[in-house]
Protein backbone atom coordinates (compact mmCIF):
# COMPACT_ATOMS: atom_id res chain seq x y z
CA UNK A 1 0.00 0.00 0.00
CA UNK A 2 1.45 3.34 -0.94
CA UNK A 3 0.08 6.48 0.60
CA UNK A 4 1.05 10.09 0.20
CA UNK A 5 3.27 9.65 3.25
CA UNK A 6 5.73 7.63 1.23
CA UNK A 7 6.59 10.71 -0.78
CA UNK A 8 7.99 12.62 2.22
CA UNK A 9 11.63 12.55 1.02
CA UNK A 10 10.57 14.41 -2.12
CA UNK A 11 8.67 16.91 0.00
CA UNK A 12 11.73 17.31 2.22
CA UNK A 13 13.94 17.98 -0.80
CA UNK A 14 11.56 20.51 -2.28
CA UNK A 15 11.07 22.25 1.06
CA UNK A 16 14.78 22.43 1.73
CA UNK A 17 15.67 23.79 -1.69
CA UNK A 18 12.77 26.22 -1.58
CA UNK A 19 13.62 27.63 1.85
CA UNK A 20 17.41 27.68 1.70
CA UNK A 21 18.15 27.97 -2.01
CA UNK A 22 15.38 29.02 -4.40
CA UNK A 23 13.69 31.64 -2.21
CA UNK A 24 16.96 33.49 -1.40
CA UNK A 25 17.98 33.36 -5.08
CA UNK A 26 14.61 34.69 -6.24
CA UNK A 27 14.75 37.48 -3.67
CA UNK A 28 18.29 38.56 -4.63
CA UNK A 29 17.82 38.37 -8.40
CA UNK A 30 14.42 40.06 -8.05
CA UNK A 31 16.22 43.11 -6.61
CA UNK A 32 17.55 43.77 -10.12
CA UNK A 33 14.10 45.14 -11.04
CA UNK A 34 14.03 47.82 -8.31
CA UNK A 35 15.84 51.15 -8.09
CA UNK A 36 18.64 51.76 -5.58
CA UNK A 37 18.02 54.83 -3.43
CA UNK A 38 20.64 54.45 -0.68
CA UNK A 39 21.96 51.51 1.36
CA UNK A 40 18.96 49.64 2.74
CA UNK A 41 16.45 51.69 0.80
CA UNK A 42 15.08 50.64 -2.55
CA UNK A 43 12.39 51.85 -4.96
CA UNK A 44 8.98 50.24 -4.98
CA UNK A 45 8.24 50.42 -8.72
CA UNK A 46 9.53 47.94 -11.24
CA UNK A 47 12.28 49.39 -13.42
CA UNK A 48 14.90 48.29 -15.92
CA UNK A 49 17.34 51.08 -15.06
CA UNK A 50 19.88 48.70 -13.48
CA UNK A 51 20.13 46.74 -16.69
CA UNK A 52 20.34 49.97 -18.68
CA UNK A 53 23.33 50.91 -16.53
CA UNK A 54 25.00 47.53 -17.11
CA UNK A 55 24.89 48.09 -20.88
CA UNK A 56 25.64 51.84 -20.87
CA UNK A 57 28.31 52.19 -18.17
CA UNK A 58 31.82 51.93 -19.71
CA UNK A 59 33.31 50.85 -16.38
CA UNK A 60 30.90 47.91 -16.10
CA UNK A 61 31.41 47.02 -19.76
CA UNK A 62 35.16 47.01 -19.13
CA UNK A 63 34.68 44.61 -16.22
CA UNK A 64 32.62 42.30 -18.43
CA UNK A 65 35.28 42.48 -21.18
CA UNK A 66 37.99 41.45 -18.68
CA UNK A 67 35.74 38.71 -17.33
CA UNK A 68 35.07 37.33 -20.80
CA UNK A 69 38.75 37.50 -21.81
CA UNK A 70 39.99 35.78 -18.64
CA UNK A 71 37.15 33.21 -18.73
CA UNK A 72 37.81 32.23 -22.34
CA UNK A 73 41.61 32.07 -21.85
CA UNK A 74 41.25 29.89 -18.74
CA UNK A 75 38.74 27.60 -20.49
CA UNK A 76 40.99 27.25 -23.56
CA UNK A 77 44.04 26.47 -21.43
CA UNK A 78 42.09 23.93 -19.37
CA UNK A 79 41.02 22.10 -22.54
CA UNK A 80 44.57 22.09 -23.95
CA UNK A 81 46.31 21.00 -20.73
CA UNK A 82 43.48 18.92 -19.30
CA UNK A 83 42.47 16.79 -22.27
CA UNK A 84 45.70 14.75 -22.46
CA UNK A 85 45.52 14.11 -18.69
CA UNK A 86 41.84 13.11 -19.00
CA UNK A 87 42.71 10.74 -21.84
CA UNK A 88 45.49 9.25 -19.72
CA UNK A 89 43.09 8.66 -16.79
CA UNK A 90 40.39 7.20 -19.05
CA UNK A 91 42.54 4.91 -21.17
CA UNK A 92 45.77 3.93 -19.38
CA UNK A 93 46.29 1.28 -16.73
CA UNK A 94 48.74 0.86 -13.87
CA UNK A 95 49.89 2.75 -10.81
CA UNK A 96 50.84 5.99 -12.58
CA UNK A 97 47.21 6.35 -13.58
CA UNK A 98 46.01 5.77 -10.02
CA UNK A 99 48.42 8.40 -8.71
CA UNK A 100 47.24 10.94 -11.33
CA UNK A 101 43.59 10.23 -10.52
CA UNK A 102 44.29 10.62 -6.79
CA UNK A 103 46.17 13.91 -7.30
CA UNK A 104 43.39 15.29 -9.51
CA UNK A 105 40.59 14.31 -7.10
CA UNK A 106 42.46 15.53 -4.03
CA UNK A 107 43.11 18.89 -5.77
CA UNK A 108 39.42 19.20 -6.58
CA UNK A 109 38.60 18.82 -2.89
CA UNK A 110 41.25 21.21 -1.57
CA UNK A 111 40.29 24.63 -0.29
CA UNK A 112 40.14 27.36 -2.95
CA UNK A 113 41.85 29.95 -0.75
CA UNK A 114 44.57 27.47 0.16
CA UNK A 115 45.28 26.81 -3.51
CA UNK A 116 45.27 30.50 -4.37
CA UNK A 117 47.69 31.10 -1.49
CA UNK A 118 50.13 28.63 -3.06
CA UNK A 119 50.30 30.82 -6.14
CA UNK A 120 50.91 33.93 -4.03
CA UNK A 121 53.95 32.23 -2.48
CA UNK A 122 55.17 31.17 -5.94
CA UNK A 123 54.47 34.27 -7.99
CA UNK A 124 55.08 37.39 -5.83
CA UNK A 125 57.97 39.63 -6.94
CA UNK A 126 60.12 38.23 -4.10
CA UNK A 127 58.46 34.82 -4.31
CA UNK A 128 59.92 31.40 -4.96
CA UNK A 129 59.84 31.46 -8.74
CA UNK A 130 61.46 34.87 -9.15
CA UNK A 131 64.07 34.20 -6.44
CA UNK A 132 64.99 30.88 -8.01
CA UNK A 133 65.20 32.37 -11.51
CA UNK A 134 67.38 35.30 -10.33
CA UNK A 135 69.70 33.05 -8.34
CA UNK A 136 70.04 30.77 -11.34
CA UNK A 137 70.99 33.83 -13.39
CA UNK A 138 68.13 33.41 -15.87
CA UNK A 139 66.70 36.87 -15.22
CA UNK A 140 68.01 40.00 -13.52
CA UNK A 141 64.86 41.75 -12.38
CA UNK A 142 61.80 39.96 -10.97
CA UNK A 143 59.14 39.14 -13.58
CA UNK A 144 55.71 40.63 -13.02
CA UNK A 145 53.74 37.44 -12.58
CA UNK A 146 51.18 38.71 -10.10
CA UNK A 147 48.83 41.66 -9.65
CA UNK A 148 47.94 41.40 -13.34
CA UNK A 149 45.88 39.22 -15.66
CA UNK A 150 48.76 36.79 -16.19
CA UNK A 151 48.72 35.87 -12.51
CA UNK A 152 44.94 35.49 -12.44
CA UNK A 153 45.01 33.25 -15.54
CA UNK A 154 47.86 31.08 -14.18
CA UNK A 155 46.08 30.60 -10.86
CA UNK A 156 42.54 30.14 -12.17
CA UNK A 157 43.62 27.62 -14.81
CA UNK A 158 45.28 25.45 -12.19
CA UNK A 159 42.27 25.73 -9.91
CA UNK A 160 39.75 24.79 -12.64
CA UNK A 161 41.88 22.05 -14.20
CA UNK A 162 40.84 19.11 -11.94
CA UNK A 163 37.17 19.72 -12.67
CA UNK A 164 37.71 19.76 -16.43
CA UNK A 165 39.94 16.67 -16.29
CA UNK A 166 37.32 14.65 -14.38
CA UNK A 167 34.38 15.64 -16.60
CA UNK A 168 36.38 14.96 -19.78
CA UNK A 169 37.75 11.66 -18.40
CA UNK A 170 34.24 10.41 -17.61
CA UNK A 171 33.18 11.18 -21.18
CA UNK A 172 36.25 9.54 -22.77
CA UNK A 173 35.96 6.46 -20.59
CA UNK A 174 32.34 6.01 -21.71
CA UNK A 175 33.38 5.58 -25.38
CA UNK A 176 33.32 1.83 -26.09
CA UNK A 177 36.86 0.68 -26.85
CA UNK A 178 35.35 -1.50 -29.55
CA UNK A 179 34.88 1.57 -31.74
CA UNK A 180 38.57 2.43 -31.59
CA UNK A 181 39.49 -1.21 -32.18
CA UNK A 182 37.15 -1.36 -35.16
CA UNK A 183 38.74 1.75 -36.66
CA UNK A 184 42.13 0.10 -36.12
CA UNK A 185 41.06 -3.07 -37.91
CA UNK A 186 39.69 -0.92 -40.73
CA UNK A 187 43.23 0.37 -41.15
CA UNK A 188 43.27 3.66 -39.25
CA UNK A 189 46.54 4.45 -37.47
CA UNK A 190 46.62 5.70 -33.87
CA UNK A 191 46.64 9.38 -34.93
CA UNK A 192 43.73 9.00 -37.33
CA UNK A 193 41.88 6.87 -34.78
CA UNK A 194 42.19 9.66 -32.23
CA UNK A 195 41.14 12.49 -34.58
CA UNK A 196 38.29 10.66 -36.29
CA UNK A 197 36.89 8.49 -33.47
CA UNK A 198 37.96 9.35 -29.92
CA UNK A 199 38.01 13.15 -30.17
CA UNK A 200 34.63 13.61 -31.92
CA UNK A 201 32.95 11.16 -29.55
CA UNK A 202 34.35 12.92 -26.48
CA UNK A 203 33.26 16.33 -27.75
CA UNK A 204 30.20 16.47 -25.45
CA UNK A 205 32.51 15.94 -22.47
CA UNK A 206 34.83 18.72 -23.64
CA UNK A 207 31.88 21.07 -24.10
CA UNK A 208 30.35 20.23 -20.69
CA UNK A 209 33.67 20.48 -18.88
CA UNK A 210 34.55 23.69 -20.71
CA UNK A 211 31.20 25.28 -19.85
CA UNK A 212 31.53 24.36 -16.19
CA UNK A 213 35.05 25.81 -16.10
CA UNK A 214 33.89 28.97 -17.88
CA UNK A 215 30.96 29.58 -15.54
CA UNK A 216 33.02 28.93 -12.41
CA UNK A 217 35.96 31.09 -13.59
CA UNK A 218 33.92 34.15 -14.50
CA UNK A 219 32.11 34.00 -11.15
CA UNK A 220 35.21 33.40 -9.01
CA UNK A 221 36.23 36.45 -7.01
CA UNK A 222 38.69 35.06 -4.47
CA UNK A 223 41.46 34.13 -6.91
CA UNK A 224 41.25 37.38 -8.97
CA UNK A 225 41.18 39.32 -5.71
CA UNK A 226 44.43 37.87 -4.38
CA UNK A 227 46.35 37.24 -7.61
CA UNK A 228 45.06 40.36 -9.36
CA UNK A 229 45.64 42.55 -6.32
CA UNK A 230 42.50 44.61 -7.03
CA UNK A 231 43.81 45.50 -10.48
CA UNK A 232 41.97 42.77 -12.37
CA UNK A 233 38.29 43.42 -11.80
CA UNK A 234 35.97 40.62 -12.87
CA UNK A 235 32.19 40.19 -12.64
CA UNK A 236 32.48 38.07 -9.47
CA UNK A 237 34.61 40.68 -7.67
CA UNK A 238 32.23 43.38 -8.80
CA UNK A 239 29.21 41.59 -7.29
CA UNK A 240 31.16 41.04 -4.05
CA UNK A 241 32.07 44.73 -3.77
CA UNK A 242 28.61 45.96 -4.68
CA UNK A 243 26.98 43.73 -2.08
CA UNK A 244 29.43 43.96 0.81
CA UNK A 245 30.81 47.51 0.45
CA UNK A 246 28.21 49.74 -1.23
CA UNK A 247 25.18 47.57 -0.35
CA UNK A 248 23.84 48.26 -3.85
CA UNK A 249 21.84 45.04 -4.09
CA UNK A 250 19.83 46.04 -7.19
CA UNK A 251 22.88 46.74 -9.36
CA UNK A 252 24.69 43.67 -8.00
CA UNK A 253 21.65 41.59 -8.92
CA UNK A 254 21.58 43.11 -12.41
CA UNK A 255 25.27 42.23 -12.89
CA UNK A 256 24.54 38.69 -11.64
CA UNK A 257 21.54 38.28 -13.96
CA UNK A 258 23.62 39.54 -16.91
CA UNK A 259 26.43 37.12 -16.06
CA UNK A 260 24.06 34.17 -15.70
CA UNK A 261 22.20 35.06 -18.93
CA UNK A 262 25.53 35.27 -20.77
CA UNK A 263 26.45 31.81 -19.53
CA UNK A 264 22.99 30.47 -20.41
CA UNK A 265 23.24 31.92 -23.94
CA UNK A 266 26.65 30.31 -24.38
CA UNK A 267 25.20 27.01 -23.17
CA UNK A 268 22.29 27.26 -25.59
CA UNK A 269 24.56 28.22 -28.51
CA UNK A 270 26.93 25.33 -27.92
CA UNK A 271 24.02 22.92 -27.49
CA UNK A 272 22.47 24.08 -30.79
CA UNK A 273 25.83 23.87 -32.59
CA UNK A 274 26.27 20.35 -31.27
CA UNK A 275 22.85 19.14 -32.37
CA UNK A 276 23.29 20.71 -35.83
CA UNK A 277 26.72 19.05 -36.12
CA UNK A 278 25.20 15.73 -35.10
CA UNK A 279 22.32 16.21 -37.55
CA UNK A 280 24.67 16.86 -40.49
CA UNK A 281 26.61 13.67 -39.70
CA UNK A 282 23.59 11.43 -39.46
Amino acid at each position, binding site marked *: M*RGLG*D*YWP*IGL*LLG*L*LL*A*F*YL*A*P*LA*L*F*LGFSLFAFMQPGQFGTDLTLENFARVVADTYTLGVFATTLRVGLTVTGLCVL*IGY*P*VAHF*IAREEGWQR*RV*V*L*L*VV*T*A*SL*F*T*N*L*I*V*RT*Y*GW*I*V*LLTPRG*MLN*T*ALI*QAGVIEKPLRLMFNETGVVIGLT*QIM*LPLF*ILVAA*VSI*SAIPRMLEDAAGIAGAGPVRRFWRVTLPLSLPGIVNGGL*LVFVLSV*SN*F*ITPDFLGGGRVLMAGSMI*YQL*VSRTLNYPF*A*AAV*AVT*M*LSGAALLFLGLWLAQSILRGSRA
Partner: protein
Amino acid sequence: MGCLYLIAPTLVVAMASVSPTATMRFPPEGFSLKWYANFFARPEFMTSLRLSGTLAVGVALAATGLAVVLAVTLRRTAPKFGGAMQALVLMPAVLPTIVLGPAVLIFGAQTGIAGGFPGALLLLAGAHVALTLPFAWQAVSTSYATLPPMLEEAAEVAGAGRGRILARLVVPMLVPGIVAALTFCFLVSFDEPVVALFTTRHDMVTLPAQVFTYLRFRADPTIAALSTMMSLISLALMLVADRVVGLDRIMGLTR
Protein backbone atom coordinates in the same frame (compact mmCIF):
# COMPACT_ATOMS: atom_id res chain seq x y z
CA MET B 1 53.58 18.04 -16.84
CA GLY B 2 49.91 18.66 -16.15
CA CYS B 3 50.32 16.89 -12.84
CA LEU B 4 53.35 18.95 -11.85
CA TYR B 5 51.39 22.14 -12.56
CA LEU B 6 48.62 20.81 -10.31
CA ILE B 7 50.80 20.01 -7.32
CA ALA B 8 53.49 22.73 -7.63
CA PRO B 9 51.65 25.26 -5.42
CA THR B 10 50.94 22.62 -2.77
CA LEU B 11 54.60 21.57 -2.66
CA VAL B 12 55.78 25.17 -2.45
CA VAL B 13 53.35 25.86 0.37
CA ALA B 14 54.54 22.76 2.23
CA MET B 15 58.12 24.05 1.96
CA ALA B 16 57.09 27.52 3.11
CA SER B 17 55.26 26.07 6.11
CA VAL B 18 58.44 24.64 7.65
CA SER B 19 60.59 27.67 6.88
CA PRO B 20 61.94 29.48 9.97
CA THR B 21 61.74 32.89 8.27
CA ALA B 22 58.54 34.84 7.59
CA THR B 23 59.45 35.58 3.97
CA MET B 24 60.28 32.66 1.76
CA ARG B 25 63.95 32.14 0.98
CA PHE B 26 65.21 29.79 -1.65
CA PRO B 27 66.85 27.42 -0.81
CA PRO B 28 65.12 27.26 2.63
CA GLU B 29 67.24 28.09 5.67
CA GLY B 30 66.60 25.39 8.21
CA PHE B 31 63.45 23.71 9.48
CA SER B 32 60.88 24.91 11.98
CA LEU B 33 57.39 23.99 13.09
CA LYS B 34 56.69 27.35 14.71
CA TRP B 35 54.04 28.36 12.13
CA TYR B 36 52.10 25.20 12.98
CA ALA B 37 52.38 26.13 16.66
CA ASN B 38 51.24 29.67 15.85
CA PHE B 39 48.13 28.36 14.10
CA PHE B 40 47.06 26.32 17.12
CA ALA B 41 47.95 29.13 19.51
CA ARG B 42 45.66 31.72 17.92
CA PRO B 43 42.20 31.64 19.53
CA GLU B 44 40.42 33.03 16.43
CA PHE B 45 41.62 30.06 14.36
CA MET B 46 40.57 27.58 17.03
CA THR B 47 37.07 29.09 17.29
CA SER B 48 36.70 28.99 13.49
CA LEU B 49 38.05 25.45 13.33
CA ARG B 50 35.42 24.28 15.84
CA LEU B 51 32.63 26.08 13.97
CA SER B 52 33.67 24.78 10.53
CA GLY B 53 34.15 21.26 11.84
CA THR B 54 30.74 21.15 13.52
CA LEU B 55 29.03 22.72 10.52
CA ALA B 56 30.70 20.33 8.05
CA VAL B 57 29.78 17.23 10.09
CA GLY B 58 26.15 18.33 10.41
CA VAL B 59 25.90 19.26 6.74
CA ALA B 60 27.50 15.99 5.62
CA LEU B 61 25.08 13.93 7.72
CA ALA B 62 22.02 15.87 6.52
CA ALA B 63 22.96 15.84 2.82
CA THR B 64 23.92 12.17 2.82
CA GLY B 65 20.81 11.14 4.75
CA LEU B 66 18.61 13.05 2.34
CA ALA B 67 20.41 11.50 -0.65
CA VAL B 68 19.79 7.98 0.71
CA VAL B 69 16.06 8.36 1.39
CA LEU B 70 15.65 10.22 -1.88
CA ALA B 71 17.38 7.48 -3.89
CA VAL B 72 15.12 4.83 -2.33
CA THR B 73 11.95 6.88 -2.89
CA LEU B 74 12.80 7.69 -6.49
CA ARG B 75 13.33 4.03 -7.31
CA ARG B 76 10.53 2.40 -5.34
CA THR B 77 7.74 4.92 -4.91
CA ALA B 78 8.07 7.61 -7.53
CA PRO B 79 10.25 6.57 -10.46
CA LYS B 80 8.44 8.97 -12.78
CA PHE B 81 9.84 11.97 -10.89
CA GLY B 82 13.41 10.68 -11.24
CA GLY B 83 14.56 12.99 -14.03
CA ALA B 84 13.08 16.18 -12.61
CA MET B 85 14.32 15.50 -9.07
CA GLN B 86 17.81 14.68 -10.29
CA ALA B 87 17.95 17.98 -12.22
CA LEU B 88 16.89 19.84 -9.05
CA VAL B 89 19.46 18.04 -6.91
CA LEU B 90 22.31 18.72 -9.34
CA MET B 91 21.45 22.39 -10.00
CA PRO B 92 23.56 23.84 -7.14
CA ALA B 93 26.68 22.24 -8.66
CA VAL B 94 26.34 24.44 -11.74
CA LEU B 95 25.02 27.71 -10.34
CA PRO B 96 27.91 29.94 -9.13
CA THR B 97 28.15 30.52 -5.37
CA ILE B 98 28.81 34.22 -6.02
CA VAL B 99 25.08 34.44 -6.71
CA LEU B 100 24.05 32.26 -3.76
CA GLY B 101 26.23 34.15 -1.24
CA PRO B 102 24.50 37.54 -1.60
CA ALA B 103 21.15 35.73 -1.87
CA VAL B 104 21.54 34.05 1.54
CA LEU B 105 22.84 37.27 3.10
CA ILE B 106 19.95 39.39 1.81
CA PHE B 107 17.34 36.70 2.53
CA GLY B 108 18.56 36.41 6.12
CA ALA B 109 18.49 40.18 6.62
CA GLN B 110 15.12 40.82 4.96
CA THR B 111 13.28 38.01 6.73
CA GLY B 112 15.04 38.67 10.02
CA ILE B 113 16.05 35.00 10.30
CA ALA B 114 19.75 35.93 10.45
CA GLY B 115 19.12 38.32 13.36
CA GLY B 116 20.53 35.89 15.90
CA PHE B 117 23.33 33.32 15.80
CA PRO B 118 21.05 30.22 15.55
CA GLY B 119 19.12 31.61 12.59
CA ALA B 120 22.26 32.74 10.78
CA LEU B 121 23.88 29.34 11.29
CA LEU B 122 20.71 27.57 10.11
CA LEU B 123 20.70 29.58 6.87
CA LEU B 124 24.39 28.90 6.23
CA ALA B 125 23.91 25.19 7.00
CA GLY B 126 20.86 25.00 4.71
CA ALA B 127 22.77 26.62 1.86
CA HIS B 128 25.65 24.20 2.46
CA VAL B 129 23.29 21.22 2.35
CA ALA B 130 22.02 22.42 -1.04
CA LEU B 131 25.61 22.89 -2.23
CA THR B 132 26.80 19.47 -1.05
CA LEU B 133 23.70 17.53 -2.17
CA PRO B 134 25.00 17.00 -5.75
CA PHE B 135 28.12 15.32 -4.38
CA ALA B 136 26.16 13.16 -1.93
CA TRP B 137 23.73 12.22 -4.68
CA GLN B 138 26.52 11.24 -7.08
CA ALA B 139 28.17 8.94 -4.53
CA VAL B 140 24.96 7.43 -3.10
CA SER B 141 23.07 6.91 -6.36
CA THR B 142 25.97 5.19 -8.18
CA SER B 143 26.32 2.89 -5.19
CA TYR B 144 22.55 2.27 -5.00
CA ALA B 145 22.40 1.44 -8.71
CA THR B 146 24.41 -1.73 -7.99
CA LEU B 147 21.83 -2.94 -5.42
CA PRO B 148 19.36 -5.25 -7.21
CA PRO B 149 15.73 -4.04 -6.73
CA MET B 150 14.82 -7.68 -6.10
CA LEU B 151 16.38 -7.56 -2.63
CA GLU B 152 14.07 -4.79 -1.49
CA GLU B 153 11.08 -6.52 -3.07
CA ALA B 154 11.99 -9.77 -1.30
CA ALA B 155 12.22 -7.94 2.02
CA GLU B 156 8.84 -6.33 1.39
CA VAL B 157 7.23 -9.66 0.53
CA ALA B 158 8.72 -11.08 3.72
CA GLY B 159 6.79 -8.42 5.61
CA ALA B 160 9.44 -5.82 6.41
CA GLY B 161 8.22 -2.23 6.67
CA ARG B 162 9.84 0.72 4.93
CA GLY B 163 11.88 1.80 7.94
CA ARG B 164 13.11 -1.73 8.54
CA ILE B 165 14.12 -2.18 4.87
CA LEU B 166 16.04 1.09 5.02
CA ALA B 167 17.82 0.34 8.28
CA ARG B 168 18.51 -3.39 7.84
CA LEU B 169 19.03 -3.70 4.08
CA VAL B 170 19.67 -0.47 2.18
CA VAL B 171 21.99 1.37 4.59
CA PRO B 172 24.23 -1.64 5.32
CA MET B 173 24.53 -2.42 1.60
CA LEU B 174 25.33 1.20 0.73
CA VAL B 175 28.06 1.72 3.36
CA PRO B 176 30.79 2.39 0.75
CA GLY B 177 28.67 4.97 -1.09
CA ILE B 178 27.62 6.56 2.19
CA VAL B 179 31.23 6.82 3.37
CA ALA B 180 32.21 8.48 0.08
CA ALA B 181 29.24 10.85 0.26
CA LEU B 182 30.07 11.88 3.85
CA THR B 183 33.69 12.48 2.86
CA PHE B 184 32.88 14.68 -0.12
CA CYS B 185 30.17 16.64 1.69
CA PHE B 186 32.42 17.23 4.69
CA LEU B 187 35.22 18.58 2.51
CA VAL B 188 32.95 20.76 0.36
CA SER B 189 31.29 22.36 3.38
CA PHE B 190 34.52 22.66 5.40
CA ASP B 191 36.24 24.39 2.46
CA GLU B 192 33.36 26.53 1.22
CA PRO B 193 34.51 30.16 1.23
CA VAL B 194 31.93 32.22 -0.68
CA VAL B 195 28.58 31.83 1.09
CA ALA B 196 30.50 31.72 4.38
CA LEU B 197 32.21 35.04 3.60
CA PHE B 198 28.99 36.81 2.68
CA THR B 199 27.17 35.61 5.79
CA THR B 200 30.06 36.20 8.22
CA ARG B 201 29.16 37.79 11.56
CA HIS B 202 31.37 38.49 14.54
CA ASP B 203 30.30 35.23 16.18
CA MET B 204 30.17 33.14 12.98
CA VAL B 205 33.46 33.15 11.07
CA THR B 206 34.18 29.83 9.39
CA LEU B 207 37.77 28.72 8.83
CA PRO B 208 37.89 29.71 5.12
CA ALA B 209 36.47 33.14 5.99
CA GLN B 210 39.05 33.51 8.77
CA VAL B 211 41.86 32.57 6.38
CA PHE B 212 40.57 35.07 3.81
CA THR B 213 40.63 37.88 6.38
CA TYR B 214 44.02 36.86 7.78
CA LEU B 215 45.63 36.78 4.31
CA ARG B 216 44.31 40.27 3.60
CA PHE B 217 46.55 41.73 6.29
CA ARG B 218 49.38 39.26 6.80
CA ALA B 219 51.24 36.86 4.58
CA ASP B 220 53.31 34.93 7.11
CA PRO B 221 53.55 31.13 6.74
CA THR B 222 50.84 30.43 9.36
CA ILE B 223 48.43 29.99 6.45
CA ALA B 224 51.03 27.77 4.76
CA ALA B 225 50.99 25.51 7.82
CA LEU B 226 47.18 25.35 7.78
CA SER B 227 47.16 24.81 3.99
CA THR B 228 49.57 21.91 4.26
CA MET B 229 47.45 20.28 6.95
CA MET B 230 44.26 20.74 4.90
CA SER B 231 45.89 19.36 1.74
CA LEU B 232 47.05 16.33 3.71
CA ILE B 233 43.53 15.81 5.10
CA SER B 234 42.05 15.98 1.58
CA LEU B 235 44.63 13.52 0.30
CA ALA B 236 44.06 11.14 3.23
CA LEU B 237 40.26 11.24 2.84
CA MET B 238 40.58 10.60 -0.93
CA LEU B 239 42.83 7.61 -0.18
CA VAL B 240 40.15 6.27 2.18
CA ALA B 241 37.41 6.84 -0.41
CA ASP B 242 39.55 5.13 -3.04
CA ARG B 243 40.12 2.12 -0.73
CA VAL B 244 36.48 1.81 0.32
CA VAL B 245 34.64 2.46 -2.96
CA GLY B 246 37.23 3.23 -5.63
CA LEU B 247 37.61 6.70 -7.06
CA ASP B 248 36.76 5.38 -10.53
CA ARG B 249 33.28 4.35 -9.42
CA ILE B 250 32.56 7.49 -7.43
CA MET B 251 33.62 9.73 -10.30
CA GLY B 252 31.60 7.66 -12.76
CA LEU B 253 34.54 6.47 -14.84
CA THR B 254 33.79 3.42 -16.95
CA ARG B 255 36.51 0.80 -16.57
